[in-house]
């Protein structure tokens, strides 16, 4: 795999007044240009991980290195320039009164010159296909559009990594598709490394690599194929495996000669069609 961009080393974190570590001795690396999904049930520590990665919380022990900067209170503002974050609720992260003001918010914070700002806002909105909505107010946008504006806000800052913290969980299926499509494109153009935190395994299936968290511990990591082999174990952890994987398994049990797991419905449909034409 490529160059290491982020590495976590025995990171432990505990919220005040709680007995259990929210994140317990977690170590992993994120490589440049990959899409990493971190999945887990509520309270598994996945959202805490996101906050740790962006310096919104600091680890009790262990270290987090982002692009050779070791995260600490002194370096947090530099590290944040490298890591952009999109949160769950589309409404509660929209700061500006219009789309372009919101995208510019992060740039204003960094003290970017006006001419440069206009250029970067325009470019970022072009990339997420929201350039038609420059002067639109947030309450006239759909959830998916608001999340795309949030992504543009991150892009304008030209970070290396984007963290999606349950960014699609409050969207309708269409909005979710829009957002994931946008992220996929940005990843394919090699603009960003993506870390998506989610409990939706359908979304995780699109990633290059999955990390499963449970009770603050890193439970398993591997490619989506490897992870979905765990099936029963995943269900025990409170995660629902994608419909296509479940259906594929059921069909195989019925004696159908299908290749192993299908991560998306399209793959399954394609294989079934092929099988049908051969029969």
């Amino acid at each position, binding site marked *: 795999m490529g160059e290491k961009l982020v590495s976590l080393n025995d990171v432990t974190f505990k919220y005040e007044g709680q007995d259990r570590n929210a994140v317990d001795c977690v170590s992993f690396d994120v490589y440049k240009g990959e899409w990493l999904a971190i999945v887990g049930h509520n309270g598994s520590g996945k959202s805490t991980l996101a906050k740790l990665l962006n310096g*919104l919380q600091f680890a009790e022990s262990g270290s987090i290195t982002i692009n050779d900067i070791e995260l600490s209170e002194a370096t947090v503002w530099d590290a944040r320039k490298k890591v952009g974050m999109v949160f769950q*609720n589309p409404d509660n992260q929209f700061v500006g*009164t219009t789309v372009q003001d919101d995208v510019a*918010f992060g740039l204003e*914070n960094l003290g970017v010159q006006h001419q440069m700002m206009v250029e970067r806002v325009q470019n970022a909105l072009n990339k997420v296909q929201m350039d038609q909505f420059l002067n639109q107010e*947030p309450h006239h946008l759909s959830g998916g559009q608001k999340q795309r504006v949030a992504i543009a806000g991150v892009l304008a800052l030209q970070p290396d990594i984007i963290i999606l913290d349950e960014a699609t969980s409050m969207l309708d299926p269409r909005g979710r598709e829009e957002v994931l499509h946008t992220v996929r494109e940005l990843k394919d153009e090699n603009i960003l490394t993506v870390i998506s935190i989610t409990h939706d395994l359908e979304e995780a299936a699109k990633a290059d690599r999955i990390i499963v968290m449970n009770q603050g511990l890193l439970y398993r990591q591997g490619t989506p194929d490897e992870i979905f082999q765990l099936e029963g174990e995943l269900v025990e952890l409170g995660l629902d495996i994608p419909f296509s994987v479940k259906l594929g398994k059921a069909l195989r049990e019925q004696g159908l000669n299908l290749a192993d797991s299908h991560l998306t419905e399209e793959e399954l449909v394609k294989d079934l069609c092929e099988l049908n034409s051969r029969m």
Partner: protein
Amino acid sequence: MLDKMIFGRYVPLDSLVHRMDPRSKLLLVFFFVCIVFLANNLITYGILAVFTLALIALSKIPARFLFNGLKPILFLILFTLLLHILFTKEGDVIYDFGFIEIYEGGLRQGLYISFRFTLLILVTSLLTLTTSPISITDGLEQLLGPLKKWKMPVHELALMMSISLRFIPTLMEETEKIMKAQTARGVDFTSGPIKERVKSIVPLLVPLFVSSFKRAEELAIAMEARGYRGGEGRTKYRQLSWHAVDTLLLCTLAVLTILLLLFRSY
């Protein structure tokens, strides 16, 4: 429905007054409010009236919007007029009802003061009718900028104002949602005695407050994640541009002041 109440004030048209810098408009209103008090006779009030009418004509704002601005204050205007007519005893008696006498000075004073009121309301509503709330915020931030030296949190106040403006429609939507949810649970918001109706607002306000605090916290985290560290070293995306028209307008105001000083009676 509800958001018309607040945003309905701004009428987006394309006119000279609309295009003007919010700073010059704010200064204009501020100085106008001061010099209105210089007028004390027919000529000076006439000059002010001409100036106000000229501004209204330039702004292309339909008269009905201006009248809407006057409506809530109409009662106050009539009330002051009445008070002056009844209680100011100056000059000759012009009418005697027996139990009450109307003095010429009282009538004159009353008319002048209600006219002064009207002018003030017209000019201030012209500001809000031709300038979007966010431009007013920007203008205020710039104008009050020098106060930062004396530790006035100008940037913070402006940010608070712009965030409030941004969240008004969101909270309105939320209020409507909660209202429907509570109506479905049997709360009656629209009928019954006043006491009951006020009581029924409680189950509306509590969830609204709780969710607002949650929003505020999430927003703060999101802002921090995007590198917000206070006003220092921040640049502005929305730029204000001062044109010749703005200077010209303030000059007209100076001329107006001189005219008022010349023609007012001492």
